[in-house]
């Protein structure tokens, strides 16, 4: 396999400005098929913004993004999802009064062609696709560990289940790349361990994973490679052990932590 075939997502010199704030400054990076890439950096470094530009929430001020060699510019958000990028949110954003199963089904519906007429006449296509999607949704609920309450509306689920349900919903779109924005936020150590297992499991199922996370143990333990952002700029890239030794990272990232400790 040649190198270019290996690359799933490519950001080339992406810059985003919000008025005077440069949230991403000339960032280039690649994600290879089948890897788990960690994206780290202090608060406000631009990690979520990076997700937003990849999924089409914001248009890059300059630079290009391509998935499997196809440019994502000028594509609508739902088209990007259909093309193969799905995400979760730093602040949980489920469809609150829909059941857990229906939340996942919305994701699974991406590739369905069921419209008004197919629904109204319950065509053979409908009778094949809808039960199939439902079966897959139930499987995904079980994979992430929310299988016990498929009919519970999502606001009634526990905090951790809601976070995991978001992962199931994203997986249901059958993405090439799944982007997890701080999936372990608010988790206790046991839950974090289970999440690490889940992330590895997701990769083993053939998905490529991009994960933003603050918990260093989790990031170092699960990622194949790590990209570090600071003030919107990429300051380092490499394997977990390389990153841990990188002086720029220690200064910028771990250094601030020490500074915080000093302040406290």
């Amino acid at each position, binding site marked *: 396999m040649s190198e270019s075939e290996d690359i799933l997502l490519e950001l080339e010199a992406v810059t985003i400005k919000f008025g005077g704030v440069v949230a991403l400054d000339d960032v280039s990076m690649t994600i290879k098929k089948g890897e788990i890439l960690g994206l780290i950096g202090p608060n406000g470094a631009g990690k979520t913004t990076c997700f937003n530009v990849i999924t089409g929430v914001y248009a890059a001020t300059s630079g290009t993004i391509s998935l499997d060699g196809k440019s994502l510019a000028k594509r609508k958000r739902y088209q990007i999802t259909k093309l193969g990028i799905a995400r979760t949110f730093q602040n949980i954003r489920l469809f609150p009064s829909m059941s857990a199963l229906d939340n996942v089904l*919305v994701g699974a519906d991406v590739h369905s062609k069921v*419209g008004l007429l197919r629904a109204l006449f319950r065509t053979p296509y409908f009778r094949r696709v809808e039960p199939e999607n439902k079966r897959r949704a139930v499987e995904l609920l079980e994979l992430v560990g929310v299988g016990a309450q498929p009919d519970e509306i999502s606001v009634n689920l526990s905090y951790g289940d809601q976070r995991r349900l978001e992962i199931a919903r994203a997986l249901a779109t059958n993405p090439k790349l799944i982007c997890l924005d701080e999936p372990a936020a608010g988790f206790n150590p046991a839950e974090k361990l289970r999440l690490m297992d889940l992330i590895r499991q997701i990769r083993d199922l053939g998905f490529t994973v991009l994960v933003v996370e603050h918990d260093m143990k989790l990031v170092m333990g699960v990622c194949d490679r790590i990209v570090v952002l600071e003030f919107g700029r990429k300051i380092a890239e490499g394997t977990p052990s390389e990153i841990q030794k990188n002086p720029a990272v220690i200064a910028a990232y771990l250094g601030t932590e020490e500074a915080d400790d000093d302040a406290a």
Partner: protein
Amino acid sequence: MNNIISGLRARLAPVADRVGTALEPVGRVLGMKSVKYPLRTVGVLLIYALPILHLPLINTENSDFSGVLFTVGTYVLVALGLNIVIGYAGLLDLGYVGFYAVGAYTVGVVTSEHGQWPFFLALPLALVVTMASGVLLGAPTLRVRGDYLAIVTMGFGEIIRIVARNTDWLGGAGGINSIPSPPDIGPEEGLFQIPHLSWQYGYPTIDDRVTKVLHFGVLDATPYFWMILTTIILVICADMLIKNSRVGRAWEATREDEDVAELMGVPTFKFKLLAFAMGACIGGLAGAMYATRVGFINPPSFPLMLSLLFVAAVVIGGAGNRWGAILGAVIVAYLPERFREFADWRLLVFGIALIVIVSFRTQGLFPGRQKKRVAQAEKEVQKLEEGAEIV
């Protein structure tokens, strides 16, 4: 209130079970699976029989009961359509009367003003025209959200009325007269005739009034009621099929969080437009039936007030639940006819009722089970947060 209802339900459940069991063989012959279906069939038949049973208490003594039932039917149909727009897709449409008017005017134009089409040919045309008007209004406006959409749609309702008043081709301020009834089906005296009941001291006797089946006269509204009831049943079936599919889920997801829906692959604009077009279509259907029943329409028949009453029907019942919307429509349309003495107070009473409902039962009288649970969960979270503050 809740205690009374649950008590009643507990007392009625065994009775209903017994009726259901007794009817099970009937259901089995008809190829129905569960006890529910025969029960439902009996319920539906009872509703069909309402205009000839003239049940005491329900009957309106001062105005033609069949006519009242037909009016209630138009409101129910409208509420079902508006429930798709407001309840499912979450689009506040305050100009729904516009679609009702477009349906009525389409029928008026092709059956009376500019043609002699039979009603049953004009009806599909009215559907197409209202659906097109829904798309025409929706395409430019559904990109705006929330309150803005409410204002734009309200404007649409007014524009339709004003255009009708100022367009001679549409009859101008005088409106359109002598819109024909639907053509009779079967012989002059009707396919067969059904006598009405009347009640004296609690006992029914057979009346000398008869309804000619499928014979749409001016005097007897019963066949019209049967026509609209049949339409309502078909619309409910379509509603259930669509709601329980990708389309229904896409609507709900859009209502809950439009941005996230889009990010999860829902083409939200397309589905909002679909909800709008479907809603328009059902509103137009109601308008078309109204036109052929009353035989005369003019611009003041379609005031802004009617739009607000339609919204009230959906909201009182509980937006998002089709049975709630139906109940709301029955309340809004039937009570003022039943209690004519108080008809002048109608707006005041609805105003107060709306305020009370919005303050005390934010989800409507008859919310979906899911919504109830959301409200409950939100309350619990609120309690937790309040507790946290004290700590």
